[in-house]
C-alpha cells in the first residue's frame, strides 16, 4: 500500500521543515533585495516577458527610478515581491512557505483545541487525507484536465485550503462524538470545539464568496465545481454544530430533570422527531449535493471511457446506494410511526400511576407512554426507535404485527405467514426446440431435466400469470378437470403438451408426487414427445424429399 510506504519514508520533522522553509524564503528575499539595488533591474526585466499584473508595478518603478533612495517602504516591498514572482525558484519557495504556514496553523489548532489525538482519530484523519488527495488529483488532471502550471497551482492551493478545513471538520466531529461519551467533560473543551466549528463554518462561507467571485469570471462550471465542495463542507460542519447543540441541550435537560415541568416535557417529547428530521435533512442534502457534483463532473469531462470517469462512476454508485438506503430507512421510520400512532394508544394517567416503573428502554421516568397490546408501557420515542429495527415487544417478545411491505426486512420467523408450499417440489428444466417453426423438415425435440430437492420457502414460484395462461389452454380441452389440478401439474411439467398427455394417459387424476431420478434426459414422458414429434417430422421430411427429388428426375 502506498500509504504504509509513505509512512516508512524518512520524513523530516516539523521543526526541521519549517526552519528550512524560513531559511529558503529569506535567501530568496535577500536575492531580490540584491537585484533591486541595481537601478537598471527593471529595464532588464522589461526585455523579459512580463505578465499582466506585474507590468503596473514595473511601470511604477520606472517613474520612481530617478530617486534611488527615496523609495518608500511599501514601494520597496512591492519591488522585492515583483522580482521574486518572476523567478521560478522564488515562486516555489513561496509556495512551500505557504504550505508550511498551513501545517503550522493546523498543528497550532490541534495543540490548542484537541490536545493529543486519539488513535482512531489519527486513523480517520489519515484515511480522509489520502482519500481527498486521490480524488482531487483525479479531478484536477482527469476531469478539468488543466494544461498550464499556474492553473494547477491555483486549483492546488484552493484544494489544500479546502482539504485543510475538511480535515479539521472531520476531526471536530470525531472529537465531539468522543466527548459525548462522557458525562464529565469540562465546559471549556466544549467551548473550544464549538468555537473551532464556528470558525470553520465562517471560513467556508468566505470560500463560498470567493467561488462566487471566481464564477463571475470563470463561468458557471468552475463556479459549480468550486462551490459544491464548499457547500458540502459547510453543511457537514453545520450538521455537527447542530448535533452538538442538541447534545448540550440534552445534557442540560438531564441536570434539571428533577424539576421538570409539564412544559419542558412537551418539548422533550418533540425533541425526538426534530432530531430525526434534522439528521435526515442534513444527511440527504449532503449526499444529494455530492451526487450531483459527481454527475456534473462525469457529464462535463466528456470522456466516458477513461480511468477518471470510472472512478467517478464508482463513487456515483456508492452515493446512489447511500441515498437509496437512507430513503428506505426513512420509509420504514414513517411506516412504523404511523403504525404506532394508529394501533397503540397512549397510556392513560391511571395506567401510568398503576405502573410506576421507568421506561424499560431508557430507564427514565415516564410522564407519557404508549401501551402495547401486551400492556407494556414505553416512551413513545424509545418504542419507535426499537420498532424500527425489530417487531416485538422488548419486554415479553410478543410479536407485533408490523410488516412493512416496502422494505425487505427479515422478520422473525414467528411473524411470517405460512405459505402452504410443498416441501418437495420438482424443479424442472424443460428445453423444447421446435425446429418445424423455422423450416418444416427440422426435427423438434425436447429434453427435460428434473431435480428433486428440498425447496427453501423463499424460492420464487414460477411466474403465476404464465401458469394461468397455460392452465386455461389445457382447460379448454379438458373442462372437467379443475384448474388448480392443472396448475399443480403445470408447475411440474412446465409444458402444455406434457400436461395434456398426462391427462390423456390418466396420470393427472392422482397427484403426481412420485420420485423421479435426478436427471432424466430421455425418461418416459419427454421421450414420448420426442418420438411423436420426430415421427410427424419424418413424415414431413419424406414428403419434402419426394417434392425435392421430383424436379431432378424431370
Amino acid at each position: 500500500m502506498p500509504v504504509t510506504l509513505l509512512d516508512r519514508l524518512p520524513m523530516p520533522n516539523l521543526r526541521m521543515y519549517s526552519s528550512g522553509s524560513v531559511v529558503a524564503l529569506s535567501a530568496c528575499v535577500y536575492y531580490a533585495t540584491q537585484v533591486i539595488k541595481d537601478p537598471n533591474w527593471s529595464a532588464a526585466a522589461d526585455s523579459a516577458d512580463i505578465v499582466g499584473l506585474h507590468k503596473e508595478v514595473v511601470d511604477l518603478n520606472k517613474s520612481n527610478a530617478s530617486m534611488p533612495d527615496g523609495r518608500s517602504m511599501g514601494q520597496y516591498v512591492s519591488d522585492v515581491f515583483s522580482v521574486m514572482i518572476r523567478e521560478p525558484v522564488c515562486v516555489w519557495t513561496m509556495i512551500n512557505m505557504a504550505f508550511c504556514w498551513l501545517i503550522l496553523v493546523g498543528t497550532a489548532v490541534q495543540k490548542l483545541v484537541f490536545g493529543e489525538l486519539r488513535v482512531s482519530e489519527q486513523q480517520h484523519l489519515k484515511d480522509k487525507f489520502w482519500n481527498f488527495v486521490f480524488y482531487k488529483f483525479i479531478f484536477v488532471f482527469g476531469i478539468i484536465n488543466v494544461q498550464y502550471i499556474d492553473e494547477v497551482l491555483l486549483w492546488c492551493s484552493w484544494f489544500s485550503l479546502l482539504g485543510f478545513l475538511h480535515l479539521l471538520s472531520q476531526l471536530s466531529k470525531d472529537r465531539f462524538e468522543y466527548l459525548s461519551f462522557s458525562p464529565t467533560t469540562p465546559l471549556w473543551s466544549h467551548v473550544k470545539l464549538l468555537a473551532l466549528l464556528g470558525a470553520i463554518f465562517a471560513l467556508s462561507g468566505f470560500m463560498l464568496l470567493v467561488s462566487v467571485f471566481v464564477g463571475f469570471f470563470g463561468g458557471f462550471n468552475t463556479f459549480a465545481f468550486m462551490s459544491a465542495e464548499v457547500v458540502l463542507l459547510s453543511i457537514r460542519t453545520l450538521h455537527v454544530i447542530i448535533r452538538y447543540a442538541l447534545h448540550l441541550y440534552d445534557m442540560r435537560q438531564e441536570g434539571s430533570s428533577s424539576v421538570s415541568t409539564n412544559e419542558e416535557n412537551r418539548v422533550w417529547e418533540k425533541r425526538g422527531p426534530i432530531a430525526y428530521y434534522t439528521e435526515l435533512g442534513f444527511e440527504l442534502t449532503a449526499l444529494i449535493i455530492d451526487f450531483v457534483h459527481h454527475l456534473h463532473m462525469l457529464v462535463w469531462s466528456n470522456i466516458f471511457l477513461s480511468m477518471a470517469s470510472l472512478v467517478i462512476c464508482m463513487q456515483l454508485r456508492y452515493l446512489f446506494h447511500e441515498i437509496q438506503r437512507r430513503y428506505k430507512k426513512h420509509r420504514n421510520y414513517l411506516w412504523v410511526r404511523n403504525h404506532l400512532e394508529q394501533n397503540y394508544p397512549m397510556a392513560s394517567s391511571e395506567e401510568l400511576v398503576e405502573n410506576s416503573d421507568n421506561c424499560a428502554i431508557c430507564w427514565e421516568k415516564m410522564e407519557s407512554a404508549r401501551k402495547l397490546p401486551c400492556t407494556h408501557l414505553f416512551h413513545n420515542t424509545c418504542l419507535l426507535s426499537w420498532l424500527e429495527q425489530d417487531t416485538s415487544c422488548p419486554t415479553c417478545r410478543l410479536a407485533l404485527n408490523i410488516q412493512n411491505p416496502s422494505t425487505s426486512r427479515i422478520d422473525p420467523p414467528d411473524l411470517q405467514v405460512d405459505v402452504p408450499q410443498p416441501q418437495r417440489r420438482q424443479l424442472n428444466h424443460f428445453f423444447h426446440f421446435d425446429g418445424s417453426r423455422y423450416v418444416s423438415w427440422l426435427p423438434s425435440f425436447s429434453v427435460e431435466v428434473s431435480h428433486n430437492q428440498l425447496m427453501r420457502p423463499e424460492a420464487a414460484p414460477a411466474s403465476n400469470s404464465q401458469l394461468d395462461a397455460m392452465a386455461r389452454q389445457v382447460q379448454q380441452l379438458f373442462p372437467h378437470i379443475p384448474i388448480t389440478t392443472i396448475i399443480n401439474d403445470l408447475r411440474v411439467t412446465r409444458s402444455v403438451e406434457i400436461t395434456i398427455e398426462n391427462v390423456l394417459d390418466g396420470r393427472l387424476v392422482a397427484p403426481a408426487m412420485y420420485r423421479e431420478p435426478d436427471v432424466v434426459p430421455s425418461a418416459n414422458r419427454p421421450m414420448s414427445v420426442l418420438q411423436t414429434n420426430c415421427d410427424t417430422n419424418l413424415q414431413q421430411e419424406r414428403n419434402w424429399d419426394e417434392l425435392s427429388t421430383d424436379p431432378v428426375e424431370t
Partner: protein
Amino acid sequence: MAGSALRRLMAEYKQLTLNPPEGIIAGPINEENFFEWEALITGPEGTCFEGGVFPAKLIFPADYPLSPPKMQFTCEMFHPNIYADGRVCISILHAPGDDPMGYESSAERWSPVQSVEKILLSVVSMLAEPNDESGANVDAAKMWRENREEFNKIAERIVRRTLGIPT
C-alpha cells in the same frame, strides 16, 4: 442519540454500584468514556471455574440499548462458548436481526430491556453450564463432551493463572 445511551449507562452503573450482584463487579474503565467498561466475574461455585476471577471488557455501541454491547474476556479462557480471542458467544448478545448460528429463536436474543447486570449473570451461568451445541471454540466443546477430566484440568490451570498463582 448518544445522549440517551449515556444516561442509561450512567443509570446502570449507579445501580450496579448501589446493589451489586454476587460475584460481579463492573464499571467504566475511566470516567471520560462511559462506553467502555471493565467487568470482573468470579467463577461460579461448584464448577471447574470456581475461585477464578476473570476480567472482561464491554464495548457499548452509540445506540445502546437498541444494539447489544460486545463482550470479550481479557484473560486466557478455554470454554465451548468463548472464542479463542476471548469474545463471548451467548444469544442475548446477538442483535435480533442477525443469527450467526442459525438456530436461536428471537426470544433469546438482545432486547433493550436487557442490561449489563443480566448479561453478566448469563455469562456466569454460561461458565457453569456450557452449551456445547454452539461451538465458538470447537476444541473446547469437543473436550467438554468427551474428555471432561482434561477440560477440568485446563480450567483449573486458567483459574490459577487469573489469580496469579504459579501453575
